[in-house]
């Protein structure tokens, strides 16, 4: 009562995701018809996420913890809008920038410069908007001398640097970090951590996936724990990290 209600940055409402696991992946017509005729077309159902609900407030930095195969990536994909949940729905307020596998949107035959505009457009930004930030992006990536070279001639570190520079230059409202804080060499890593810290300070909402509880404690102010597609803990980063660490140790 009387409390001002702020619109949450991310709402995950009763989300479930069902996968059909078939022993062999059928990706051509020939096999499909053979299987159909011999009536061997059956699927095993698997719920990757079950009734997951949580909200993230603007400016909150949420760590997502869980073992391999627990559904972390599936959860991030539904938040990013890449994967549509089988049940429930996800709402994101504002521009979302996924920092998952940087440089996935590059065209290898395109030069660095051209890729900046292509990548920007992939995130929904106009040429004009990117042009305004173009110099910053190039300066931050330290690729000025290579900007007119096709990206296929870049090293993987250079590609990641360019991707990072674009994704962070556009001032997103929600940032998804999937263990990408280790970009490039030590010098660039320091710079990128600083950049992310400054984005944190400006109040960006963050979803951060990691196995490293130290990093989660350092970067996040709250966390959730996912086990076999179910959220089993939600609280401050310290509380949830303690639960996770206890599980890691008990499994030893």
């Amino acid at each position, binding site marked *: 009562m009387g409390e001002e209600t702020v619109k949450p940055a991310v709402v995950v409402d009763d989300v479930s995701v069902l996968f059909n696991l078939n022993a062999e992946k059928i990706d051509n017509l*020939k096999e499909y018809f053979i299987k159909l005729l011999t009536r061997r077309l059956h699927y095993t159902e698997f719920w990757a996420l079950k009734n997951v609900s949580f909200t993230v407030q603007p400016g909150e930095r949420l760590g997502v913890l869980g073992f391999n195969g627990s559904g972390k990536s599936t959860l991030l994909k539904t938040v990013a809008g*890449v994967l549509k949940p089988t049940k429930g729905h996800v709402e994101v307020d504002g521009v979302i920038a*996924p920092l998952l596998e940087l440089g996935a*949107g590059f065209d290898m035959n395109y030069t660095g410069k051209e890729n900046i505009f292509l990548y920007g457009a992939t995130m*929904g930004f106009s*040429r004009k908007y990117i042009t305004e930030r173009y110099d910053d992006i190039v300066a931050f990536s330290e690729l000025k001398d290579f900007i007119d070279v096709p990206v296929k001639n870049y090293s993987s570190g250079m590609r990641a640097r360019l991707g990072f520079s674009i994704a962070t230059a556009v001032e997103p409202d929600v940032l998804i970090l999937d263990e990408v804080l280790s970009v490039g060499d030590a010098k660039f890593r320091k710079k990128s951590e600083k950049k992310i810290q400054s984005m944190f300070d400006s109040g960006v909402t963050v979803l951060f996936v990691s196995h490293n509880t130290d990093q989660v404690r350092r970067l996040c102010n709250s966390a959730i724990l996912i086990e076999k597609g179910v959220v089993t803990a939600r609280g401050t980063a310290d509380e949830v990290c303690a639960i996770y660490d206890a599980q890691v140790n008990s499994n030893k």
Partner: protein
Amino acid sequence: MIKNLYNYRYLFAEIVRKNIKLQYRNSVLGIFWTLLQPFLTTVVLVLVFSGIFGKSSKLVVNYPIYLLCGRMLYEFFSQSTKRAMRSVRLSAGVIKKVYIPKYIYPISNVTSNFITFLISLIVLVAFIIFFKVTNNNPVHMTGYVFLAWVPILILFFLCVGIGLILSVLEVFFKDTEYLYDVFCMLIFYLTPVFYNVKQLHISSKIVRLGLMANPLYSIVSMFRSCVLYGEMWNWNWFYYAAGMSIFLMLTGSLLFWKTQDKFILHL
């Protein structure tokens, strides 16, 4: 959906721009290939077929132009639908990471091909002028030439519709490509590109049915009516071609709409 497309108009423009730029990068002649390629292939086809079908008569009026009309439309059809077919699968890397309205890929690929096709029409204009100037069996140029955009527009929508359908099939079944290559060959022979149907005495009912069912037959015929014969097209062609392209557009959109959320599981 309209609002959605509006938000992603920059991406649409970037992809169109990229396709056109990359198609001719690393070639000395660059965009001139768009003009040179139809010119050279037409020369080859004229040399090969002029003995058999090439007698400029009342039926074909002017064989090089007759051939060019058919070839350019067919080439746009096959190139754009093939590109659209592969577009979604080739963009798997992006689709798996960022939300993008996926229909952008097939539509922008058809559009970029459409633009290079429009540029290549310069060759056709050049040929027409050449025959006009040399007064060597010139085409019947009339006001109907200004209606040539109608078959071109119908063809564009036909390609978008087919492109949408193919891109969906290609996501789920990789062998769509091979089947479609064969299908394109069939379409090529069922389109009067280098022959005139009236010159051949087709007795096979199946072949005649195939010709009638092929929307490209109607579109190419309409285009030739405007450009070559200088007369109004047969309205049956118009009804059939327009009907087919609307039907395929609707089918393609519906199929794409229904299946797009499952793409990610198959890419």
